[in-house]
C-alpha cells in the first residue's frame, strides 16, 4: 500500500491546523534545545575564559565577586590588598609567575586594566600581538581584539563610577566629567582574540594605573615597568598567580587564605556557580518538560478533533476498498509528519534562538559563547519524535474502528 497521495491530500486540506500544530511543537522543541545549548555554551565558554587564571589572590570578601571582576571584567569596586603581597610572591619558590590586576578606569565604555606584560601575553602564550607591539612604557597601551579603537590613537582614561553600566564602545555621560586629563596613553598594539571579556579591555602597565591615581609607580627608578617591584609597592585589587605545580597551587591557596588576603581557584568558584546554574537549569528543564507535555497534549487533542471532522473522508476510502490498516497508516502518518516537521523546525529555531541569546550575552559581557549542537540535543528531539509517533497512534487507533456505512451516510 502507498499512503503518500492521501497523506499529501490530508496535509494540504488541513493547512491551517497543520501550521498551528507545527508551530506548537516547534516552540516546545526550541525551548528545550535552546535551554540545553545555552547552558552548555555558557559553561564551556566561561571555563575557557578562566583558563589562564589558575589562582586569584584578593582582599577577603566575596570569592565570586573576585572571580567575576578579574576573569569576566564585571567590574565592581574590590577591596585592595597590600602591595607587599607582590613582594612575597616574588620570593615564593612555589610561584612560577604572577601579575597584579587593577581596574577602575574606562575609555569609551571599555574597561582599562592595569597589569604586567607577563599576563598581557598570557604567560608568554601570545608570542606577538595581532597588530603593533606589546607596551614597553607607562604611557603605552595595548587593546583587546574587539576594542573599536585604532593602533596609534591616544586616549585618556576616565574614572569609572560605581553603578554606571558601561556599554563597550560607547562613552557614558559620566566619562567626560571624570577624565584623567593629565594622562595620555598611546595605543601600540592589538591582541589576538581570546573569546573572553578581556577582548574588550584596554591593557596598560600597572604602573600607569598606580601613577594615575597618585600611588607612585612601585619603582624607585622613573619610567621602569614590570617586575620586580620596589619596597613600597602600592595596593592592588587582585593578583593572578601561576603556581609551579598542582601541590604548589593548593599550598599557595592555603597560605594566602590568611593574613589579610583571600586566595581562590576560579575553577572552583565556577564549579559552585555551575552547580547553581545546574539547579536553575533543572528547574527550567522541568518547566520545559511540562510545557512539552502540555503542548503534545494539545496537539493530540487537535489531531483527534481533526480526525473526527474527517471520519466521512476515511469512511469513503473504506467504501472504495481501503483496508483498516491503510486508514490507520494515513492517519498516523498525517500526525507523524506534522510532529516531525515541528521537531525539525524546532531544532532549527532552537539553534537560532541560542545564537540570538548568545549574541546578546556576548554583547553584554564580552564572553564569546561557543554554540554547539550535540548528539544529546538531537537524541532528545528524536525521543520527542518517538513520543510523538506514539501519540499519533491515538487518532490512528480511533480510525481503526470507523463504521463504513454510518460514516458515509
Amino acid at each position: 500500500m502507498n499512503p503518500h497521495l492521501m497523506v499529501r491530500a490530508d496535509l494540504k486540506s488541513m493547512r491551517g491546523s497543520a501550521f498551528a500544530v507545527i508551530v506548537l511543537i516547534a516552540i516546545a522543541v526550541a525551548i528545550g534545545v535552546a535551554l540545553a545549548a545555552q547552558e552548555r555554551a555558557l559553561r564551556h565558554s566561561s571555563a575557557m575564559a578562566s583558563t589562564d587564571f589558575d589562582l586569584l589572590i584578593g582582599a577577603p570578601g566575596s570569592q565570586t565577586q573576585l572571580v567575576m571582576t578579574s576573569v569576566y571584567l564585571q567590574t565592581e569596586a574590590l577591596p585592595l590588598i597590600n602591595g607587599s603581597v607582590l613582594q612575597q610572591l616574588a620570593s615564593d619558590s612555589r610561584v612560577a609567575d604572577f601579575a597584579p590586576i587593577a581596574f577602575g578606569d574606562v575609555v569609551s565604555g571599555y574597561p582599562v586594566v592595569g597589569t604586567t606584560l607577563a599576563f598581557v601575553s598570557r604567560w608568554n602564550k601570545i608570542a606577538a600581538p595581532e597588530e603593533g607591539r606589546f607596551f614597553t612604557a607607562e604611557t603605552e597601551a595595548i587593546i583587546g581584539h574587539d576594542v573599536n579603537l585604532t593602533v596609534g590613537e591616544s586616549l585618556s582614561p576616565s574614572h569609572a563610577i560605581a553603578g554606571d553600566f558601561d556599554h563597550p564602545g560607547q562613552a557614558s555621560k559620566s566619562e567626560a566629567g571624570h577624565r584623567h586629563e593629565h594622562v595620555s596613553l598611546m595605543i601600540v598594539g592589538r591582541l589576538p582574540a581570546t573569546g573572553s571579556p578581556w577582548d574588550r579591555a584596554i591593557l596598560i602597565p600597572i604602573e600607569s594605573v598606580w601613577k594615575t591615581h597618585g600611588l607612585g609607580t612601585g619603582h624607585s627608578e622613573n619610567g621602569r615597568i614590570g617586575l620586580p617591584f620596589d619596597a613600597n609597592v602600592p595596593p592592588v585589587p587582585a593578583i593572578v598567580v601561576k603556581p609551579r605545580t598542582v601541590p604548589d597551587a593548593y599550598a599557595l591557596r592555603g597560605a594566602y587564605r590568611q593574613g589579610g588576603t583571600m586566595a581562590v581557584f576560579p575553577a572552583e568558584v565556577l564549579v559552585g556557580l555551575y552547580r547553581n546554574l545546574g539547579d536553575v537549569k533543572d528547574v527550567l528543564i522541568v518547566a520545559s518538560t511540562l510545557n512539552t507535555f502540555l503542548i503534545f497534549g494539545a496537539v493530540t487533542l487537535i489531531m483527534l478533533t481533526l480526525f473526527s471532522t474527517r471520519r466521512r473522508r476515511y469512511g469513503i476510502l473504506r467504501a472504495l476498498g481501503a483496508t483498516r490498516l491503510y486508514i490507520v497508516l494515513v492517519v498516523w502518518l498525517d500526525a507523524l509528519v506534522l510532529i516531525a516537521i515541528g521537531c525539525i523546525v524546532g531544532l532549527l529555531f532552537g539553534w537560532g534562538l541560542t545564537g540570538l541569546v548568545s549574541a546578546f550575552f556576548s554583547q553584554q559581557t564580552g564572553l564569546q559563547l561557543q554554540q554547539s549542537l550535540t548528539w544529546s540535543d538531537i537524541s532528545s528531539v528524536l525521543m520527542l519524535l518517538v513520543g510523538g509517533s506514539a501519540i499519533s497512534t491515538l487518532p490512528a487507533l480511533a480510525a481503526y474502528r470507523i463504521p463504513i456505512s454510518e460514516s458515509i451516510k
Partner: protein
Amino acid sequence: MPNTTGPKLNAAPHGRLTNVCVEYIHPNKQPVRILDIPFLEIPAGRLLGLRGPSGSGKTTLLHLLGGLARPTKGQISWASSEISSLNEATCDSWRRTNVGFIFQDFHLIAELSVLENIVLPLLFTRLFVAQEIKDRACQLISSMGLRNPHQGISTLSRGEQQRVAIARALLHEPTILIADEPTASLDKESADGVMKLLISHAQSTGATLIVSSHDSQVLTYLNEVITLHAGRLAKGEQRK
C-alpha cells in the same frame, strides 16, 4: 459451500438476498427494523433501479449489496461468495475487486488531481501504479469527455466531478456497479450524460448495475426497478 474468499469474479455475478433484515437499537433500547427483505434475486448483468421515499432503506440496501454493511440477520451472496459471512479483511478485498461505488456527492478528494483521484483506490494495495494503468485511466478520463487528467477537482463542474467519480469506480473493471443517487445533485443534462455513461459501461462489460434514485426519468434507463417502502419491497415490480 459458499466461497469465503473474495476473488475477482470473471463475469457479472448473480445476486441473492435471503431473509435479510437490518435492525438498530433505538435509544429506548427497543430494536427497530429498518430493512426486511425475505428474498430478492438480482440476475447477472441486470440494470436494476431502486426507488422509494427518503428513509425507505434504499441506501441501507445498497450498502448491504456492496459489502459496506452487514445485515442483522440473513444471507447476501454474489455468485458463490456469501459476503455477509466474510470477515472484514476479506470483505474489503472482495469489495475492492468486484464493486464500483458512485455516490451522490461524488466524494472525490479535492486536494488531488483528476488522475490521482481515479488511481487512488489502486494504491490501497500497491506501492506504485504502473504506467499502463495510468494510460488506461487517461483513456477513461478522455472517454468521459474530460480533457486534462492533471486538472484540480475544484475547477470541475459538478457534472464533470461525477464523471471523475464514475471513472474512479470503473478503472478496476468491477462486475457490480452500485450508484447511490448518482444524479441527485446534477442538472438534467448532466444527469442524462451520467446515466448514459453508466448504462453504456454496464452493457459493454456485462456488469450488474444497481442505481437508487428519486428521479423517475433516471429510472427509465434501467430495465428493472424495485420499490422500497419502510424497508420492505413493495408489491409489483416494474420491468422495462
